[in-house]
């Protein structure tokens, strides 16, 4: 892991304002930003560890621990709420048996809230592993989840 992190830092350190680029690249590689990466980034970019840690924790997108095999993001914002996204959220937490920000015991699914996916005319919206879905009913949610089960 250390060598991959070093090569990411080396590749991006010449860019203006490289910290977010580095964090994105690390999360793309590992699925999260491992805590042990922070001191390496600090040294590599000539920043304090506080600056790196402060940045990682500021942004909702960066994870501090590995996610489940599939990441389910449900939109919690107004347009989706107007189309019963709260009921969909209740269905999702019940079906998966977890709350938001949690991962199922078998490590298959992580459930995350998201505030707008820009699909507000096809609400409620959700994303699974970067794939966007609109007009999500409870039954469509179940179907999409079942598809992921099959694929994995």
């Amino acid at each position, binding site marked *: 892991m250390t060598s991959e992190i070093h090569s990411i830092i080396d590749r991006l350190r010449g860019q203006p*304002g490289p910290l977010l680029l580095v964090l994105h690249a690390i999360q793309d590689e590992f699925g999260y930003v491992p805590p042990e990466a922070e001191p390496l980034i600090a040294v590599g970019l000539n920043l304090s560890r506080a600056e790196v840690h402060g940045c990682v924790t500021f942004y909702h997108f960066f994870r501090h621990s590995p996610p489940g095999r599939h990441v389910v993001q449900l939109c919690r914002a*107004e347009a989706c709420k107007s189309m019963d996204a709260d009921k969909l959220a209740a269905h999702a937490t019940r079906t998966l048996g977890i709350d938001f920000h949690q991962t199922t015991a078998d490590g298959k699914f992580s459930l995350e809230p998201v505030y707008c996916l*820009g699909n507000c005319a*096809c*609400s409620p919206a959700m994303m699974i592993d970067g794939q966007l879905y*609109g*007009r999500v009913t409870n039954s469509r949610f179940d179907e999409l989840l079942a598809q992921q089960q099959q694929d994995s």
Partner: protein
Amino acid sequence: MSTTVFVPKDAAAVSVGADQVALAIAHQAQARSLEVAIKRNGSRGLLWLEPMIEVQTAAGRVAYGPVSVADVPGLFEAGFLLGGAHALHHGATEQIPYLKSQQRLTFARVGIIQPANLADYIAHDGYRGLRQALQLSAAQIVQTVLDSGLRGRGGAAFPTGIKWKTVLDAPSPQKYVTCNADEGDSGTFADRMLMEGDPFTLIEGMTIAGIAVGATRGFIYLRVEYPHAHRTLNEAIAVAYGAGYLGDNVLGSGHKFDLEVRLGAGAYICGEETSMLESLEGRRGEVRVRPPLPAIKGLFGMPTIVNNVISLASVPIILDKGAKFYQDFGTGKSRGTLPIQLAGNLKHGGLVERAFGLSLRELLYDYGGGSASGRPLRTVQIGGPLGAYVPASQFDTAVDYESLSGIGALLGHGGIVGFDDTVDMAHMARYAMEFCAVESCGKCTPCRIGSTRGMEVIDRIMVGMNPQQNLTLLEELCDTMVNGSLCGLGGMAPFPVQSALKHFREDFLKFHHP
């Protein structure tokens, strides 16, 4: 002879099955030995009809939608390749009233062309604005934008030309053009549709901006929730470099302009311009105290243009057709057109680009078709999570900057979210505070602590604890946040709460203490 079928690859269309429909059409065509060329366009913006496919016929493009995979064999049986009748047939796309009555300037090409296809872009009047700009002096370009009356479409509505002039007049060895594509407001998707449907328009607008103010480098700050737009922009930027529209010598003019996309990381506050600059510099997205303005001291301390996607994407047509052409649209101090986004509980959600001045009612009923649920519309929220809730009694208000501010609302980025009569406004008010608590950057106290306290007070109201006293407390808290916060997040998060209290007070008084 091969027939062309357009299947959008806009994220909204894909979210409801456009990719599968495209595959199904290809399979059916093969099985029937018919020659079909599938082209992936952006979305026309009639989002309730997505996936909306179009067939190129002798009489123009004909639309069918919403098409599911199961509909595809039936469409072939009905002879849709010749525009044949079918339950999903809507006739000539351009004649659909929703589209026909629009005035598409900024979105002129969206849904028509293939997004990252430069030849297609140029064939539809693309890069005419840049060619025109290259004939002008920097001051003339800035003057044209100023004369057009274009105001920032991100939400603040500051005159774009004045921003540009400030950057032009600021002497500096390095200047930047940054595009704020952190479209985080719920109910908005115009930026996304444009970047996915016609990315060259944004690239062209930014290039013109760079030449106008003497900036040689541009950044598009794109929210990470938009992976489709990210791919399309990167593809188009690579094509533009390859064809000499970006790089060291733009179209041989001697002007240099480099452009890249930088991704955000899920922080709503980074849509605030100074916070966005912090984020671009690789730091926590905490807002900066102004002054100095970004136009004087912006990215990496240099003079910087910060404009929204739609503002920049409106520049090419202004340069191409002239300031007066654009200025002739609109009303009062709201000039030009506005891409309005109809979202949430509306039957016909989508994108409506019209000159300013339409009434809310026309938008909600003539375009939007009323609620999706069939129940009466009770309220709409305009301008995202920091925008006011407007009650049905005010639906005759005109949609322009001044009229909306006259009723204590704001236009913001032009998103309108419909709610039917089942909405609980105390719940929505609590959500406004919750959202602010989640997204506050934490730099100033009224926003960081006020939002959490606001949530707690509404929680007490919602269990019927001393409602009158707590409502007074909530009103005072809103006042403190509005007047004491450093930026628009804490300063405007109370707007939805205050409007809910003003127009729907009964929703806060229905709770009884157990």
